């Protein structure tokens, strides 16, 4: 949109309309969930606060996982303007690898009970598998993306081709069946919230996500490398001109971004399991989060994953029972609302 063009009064109204519609929709949604949602699986929140609390927690814990995966995607894009369409493949690869490692550490390939799994035999596979994804990510960047930096669409297509190959090779290596990583026994309990049982493993996942988020924030704001990356996001040619080794910074960023995809993959494998085709689902989740939040913004990734996580959790519970299967549309409505107001996402800037 040209800022220079003279807007007529009619255009002004058309512009402000979304700004009015969004608070209205939001207010209606809150009203619906709190008081009106009769005949839904969950019933209105004032009548069943337990179900409401559980749904809210579900939304926030899912948001934690969405954030870990999407922050890697947005970090890479923010600095290099590279859209890594193989992000989901790195997620899936780390998930499968961690499951194999955990099986090797526990010494069983099937029927692993949480009691068999110590904290170590969850965290070590997580770190190892995420490191593998990170190394693969750096290789991918050095071999296929380094020399065509700036050609966004070519890079997107190259990573699409790589994701197709990786998906096929993972199908060959790990088979087509769904596999699940087992949470450590120490966190596999249930607690009581307003009379509803809630799995502590989900809260553990949220805790891991918060740790990852805080570490990422400290790294970006308190270290020299982080400052260089933030400067590079704002003005990459200037950073280059100041004599900073941008090639190295790019490689490190790709390492961290792919590591986050891998860590998310292991968490996702423990939370919902991994299977062939999940790479596409998680690429979609990352895309939705960063499109809502704004590409390249970590703040946006937090906001986007919270909004998306809440919508994903609330829509099946608070739609009328016979329409529950329309839940997926609400994710799309969220996306449409955000884009109508801010075409580049909540915290995004035009390229």
């Amino acid at each position, binding site marked *: *949109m*040209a800022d*220079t*063009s003279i807007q007529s009064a009619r255009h002004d109204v058309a512009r402000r309309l979304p700004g009015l519609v969004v608070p209205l929709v939001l207010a209606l949604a809150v009203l619906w969930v709190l008081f009106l949602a009769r005949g839904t699986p969950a019933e209105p929140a004032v009548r069943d606060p337990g179900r409401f609390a559980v749904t809210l927690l579900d939304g926030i814990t899912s948001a934690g996982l969405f954030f870990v995966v999407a922050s890697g995607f947005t970090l890479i894009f923010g600095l290099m*303007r590279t*859209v890594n369409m193989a992000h989901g493949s790195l997620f899936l690869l780390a998930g499968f690898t961690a499951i194999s490692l955990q099986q090797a550490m526990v010494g069983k390939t099937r029927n692993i009970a949480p009691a068999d799994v110590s904290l170590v035999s969850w965290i070590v596979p997580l770190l190892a598998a995420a490191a593998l994804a990170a190394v693969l990510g750096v290789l991918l960047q050095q071999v*296929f993306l380094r020399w065509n930096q700036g*050609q*966004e*669409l*070519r890079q*997107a*297509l*190259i990573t*699409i*081709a*790589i*994701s*197709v*190959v990786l*998906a*096929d*090779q993972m199908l*060959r290596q790990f088979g087509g069946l769904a596999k699940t990583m087992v949470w450590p026994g120490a966190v596999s309990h249930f607690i009581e919230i307003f009379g509803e049982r809630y799995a502590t493993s989900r809260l553990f996942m949220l805790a891991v996500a918060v740790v990852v988020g805080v570490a990422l924030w400290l790294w970006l704001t308190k270290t020299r490398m982080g400052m260089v990356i933030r400067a590079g996001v704002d003005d990459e040619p200037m950073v280059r001109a100041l004599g900073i080794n941008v090639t190295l910074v790019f490689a490190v960023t790709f390492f961290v971004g792919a590591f986050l995809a891998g860590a998310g993959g292991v968490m996702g494998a423990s939370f919902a399991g991994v299977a062939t*085709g999940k790479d*596409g*689902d998680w*690429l*979609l989740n990352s*895309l*939705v989060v*960063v*499109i809502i939040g704004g*590409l390249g913004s970590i703040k946006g990734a937090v906001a986007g994953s919270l909004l998306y996580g809440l919508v994903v959790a609330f829509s099946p519970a608070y739609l009328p029972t016979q329409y529950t*299967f*329309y*839940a*997926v*549309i609400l*994710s*799309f409505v969220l*996306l*449409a609302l955000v*884009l*109508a107001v801010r*075409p*580049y996402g909540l915290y995004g800037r035009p*390229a």
Partner: protein
Amino acid sequence: MTARRLLTPANAVLVVVVVLLLALPAFGTDFFVRFVMTQTMILGLIAATIVFLTSHGGMISLAQLLLAGIAGFMFGNAALESGARGLNLGWPPWVAVVFALGVTTVVAFLLGALASRTTGIYFLMLTLVYGVIGYFFFAQVVTVSGPGGVTSIVAPEPFTDPVNLYYAAVVLSVLAYLAFRAIGRTNFGLALQGVRDDPVRMSSLGFNVALHRTLAFTLGGLVAGVAGLLNVWWRGQIDPASIAIGPTLIVLIIAVIGGISYFEGAWLGALVYVLLNTYTKSIPLIDRIGLTPDRFNTVIGLIVLLIMVLSPEGLVGILERAGRGRGVSKPTEHSIELPTTSPTTVQTGGREP
């Protein structure tokens, strides 16, 4: 336009190809005509809409297979009288055709309007989200489809014969090819290319940038819908898995193999894809490195990777470069970096439509 100007080598090749395609049922095997070539024409038609949006509008769309799928699902829902799933409206087939194309066009208009403020890589990601959410929609909403899809769909009368269906696919492909090329020379097409190259300038000249993009996307959606109808008539069924993320990427890959800036490339890419898909399965490849017949996606992925690394212009680009002679690799407007960096090659002489 005079006859002399129409008599270019490229047009002569086009006429020969069309004549060959129309004569094919006379000498080709049934399998080749009814399976390989019909599929090629349908996939090529869908891929051509991607080429149109990319080359004229700077919008790489991953929602085209979804739009084709919507037409297919709508036809199935409207035309069937009874079936396991779907609405089973039992309308006359041609009413169902109009209904399917109407719904597809409206959906394309709405999706296009929402995406019209973005271009390039943002557009690619947003349309991928459209595609995947569309897949989930049809997979979950049992009223119109559900995971099993809509089955036992019958084509309207003359197209129940596979050869007639093949002819329809060829004729519609040729029409779409000519129409897409002609649109580039209309006021609308010129303005659209102006929007592609410099949206800010076009906006200050008084053109409605968002509207041009939306209308282009709607047109692409309509043509994709036509291809979707052919597809559902050819297969006799449609299920959500056929519009999932995998096939969605395959259609983009087809456009890329052929050359994403060339309309011919859409059908050439489709032919290469279908030939590989059909015939490499019978060639024993080396199992050790993972290239068994089942590993077709690895093969196709590696081919795309190779093309994107070596020559982003695809097969038609490679052929054209070979035709021009060696050493002359002058950058034309046929560059993969269409939306942002291509030089302003279009004179925007048209009035605001």
